[in-house]
């Protein structure tokens, strides 16, 4: 137990110093800008398709389930629209999409940086006098934190539109009832809440796997292990911070 706790503090300390080192001034601004665009392309654009597909189907399922549950005559028909909108915006888009991205993007980052570590590419950067942490990790963090909120907004739209499309197709909602529902009692603050979550989760998804990759020791087998650990820990942290942020922002 004691070693377990001290282990946690060891990792937190090492994570903190790595990420703190990442936030230093880049060597050459134009090289750094190029790196950010590479990562936006790699981490953001590369995830668009999966986010769209997932969101459309999840919106559809939420709509159909809501219609199935709301059988009482006291519940107005537009409530289905409200339910889909709120589930998508508050929880599904920011949290579930981030969890999926923790799997996709997280394993990608951990294995990329882990491979660079075990093949001595990180040593090669250091020996040149390049701060490997700033060069490799910071662009990933910046790209994620910039692009994740966009992905989340796209996911919200896709989910709500998916709910509408499938709901109308399966006759569980009327086209106008649903549209009335998604506008009913709309709170801008919920969008702010979702975007804050998206940005915090993006930081976790990029920095935690980067940490696991950066301190990989050994060979291909260990790179695989780092990548698995990266996904597990970033997912757990997302769930933990989901709880903390919800307490702070909504309670």
């Amino acid at each position, binding site marked *: 137990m004691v070693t377990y706790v001290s282990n946690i503090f060891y990792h937190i300390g090492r994570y903190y110093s790595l990420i703190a080192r990442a936030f230093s001034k880049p060597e050459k601004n134009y*090289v750094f800008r190029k790196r950010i665009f590479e990562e936006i392309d790699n981490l953001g654009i590369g995830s668009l398709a999966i986010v769209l597909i997932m969101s459309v189907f999840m919106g559809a399922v939420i709509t159909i389930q809501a219609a199935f549950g709301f059988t009482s005559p006291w519940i107005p028909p537009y409530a289905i629209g409200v339910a889909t909108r709120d589930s998508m915006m508050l929880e599904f888009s920011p949290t579930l999409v981030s969890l999926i991205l923790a799997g996709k993007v997280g394993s990608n980052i951990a294995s990329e940086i882990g491979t660079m570590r075990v093949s*001595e*590419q990180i*040593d*090669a950067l*250091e020996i040149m*006098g390049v701060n490997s942490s700033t060069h490799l990790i910071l662009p990933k963090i910046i790209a994620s934190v910039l692009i994740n909120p966009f992905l989340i907004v796209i996911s919200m739209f896709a989910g709500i539109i998916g709910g509408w499309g499938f709901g109308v197709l399966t006759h569980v909602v009327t086209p106008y009832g649903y549209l009335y529902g998604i506008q009913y009692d709309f709170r801008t603050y919920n969008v702010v809440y979702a975007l804050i979550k998206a940005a915090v989760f993006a930081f976790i998804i990029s920095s935690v796997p980067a940490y696991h990759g950066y301190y990989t020791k050994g060979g291909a087998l260990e790179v695989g292990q780092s990548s698995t650990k990266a996904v597990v820990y970033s997912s757990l942290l997302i769930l933990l911070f989901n709880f903390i942020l919800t307490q702070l922002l909504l309670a």
Partner: protein
Amino acid sequence: MIEVRNISKSFGEKQVLKNVSLVAEQGKTTLVIGASGSGKTVLMKCIVGLEEVNSGGIFYNERNFSEMNTKQRKGIRKEMGMLFQGAALFDSQSVEENVAFPLSMFTNMTEEEKTERVNFCLKKVNLENSNKLHPSELSGGMKKRVGIARAISLSPKYLFCDEPNSGLDPLTSHVIDDLIKEITQELNITTIVNTHDMNSVMNIGDKVIFIYKGEKWWEGNSATILHADNKEVLEFVGTAKMLKELRK
């Protein structure tokens, strides 16, 4: 000139280097030889600062590298080039991008100047017409050559090569050895090479340091090593059959 004074290095309980000292002179190739696991790579990583030493000092032209802060070290790092055991080329970049990388990072060269310098370095290592290839498309020997080209692109004062011949056939090994020797003399660099290859010792051993279980066991050159008055050295040399014949 690089001077290593009494350095020791442990990982936890395990002492890997014990009181090692050596001097590497400018324009010459200093070879560090020894069996696998004797501590050659750790010694090199300590010299370049990728590992911290537990005691002792490393001096680059009288400048104490061990006592420098990150910023001061960076100044010396720009004077270093290193060829890693697996070449350590950046996978995501082409050959020319790899060689141009230090130039983009540390100089204000224009694209034309960079291209010119890249082609010059690639020509030095006899690797022309491969500029656009990626590391995954290169053979082991080509990777090492690109590694050397990248290491010399900023005209380093100090060159480090960790097992430049490992995984190469004898012919390619010879070519790489010659390249290192030539570049060292021509550009007047201080070069340290790790190897366990006796062919390299005979080819480029201006000075030879033999490491045995983390200690400096013997020092000499390619001529004196065959008649070394040291059991472990002779064992190491003797395992090369050809040399056994030669000594008779």
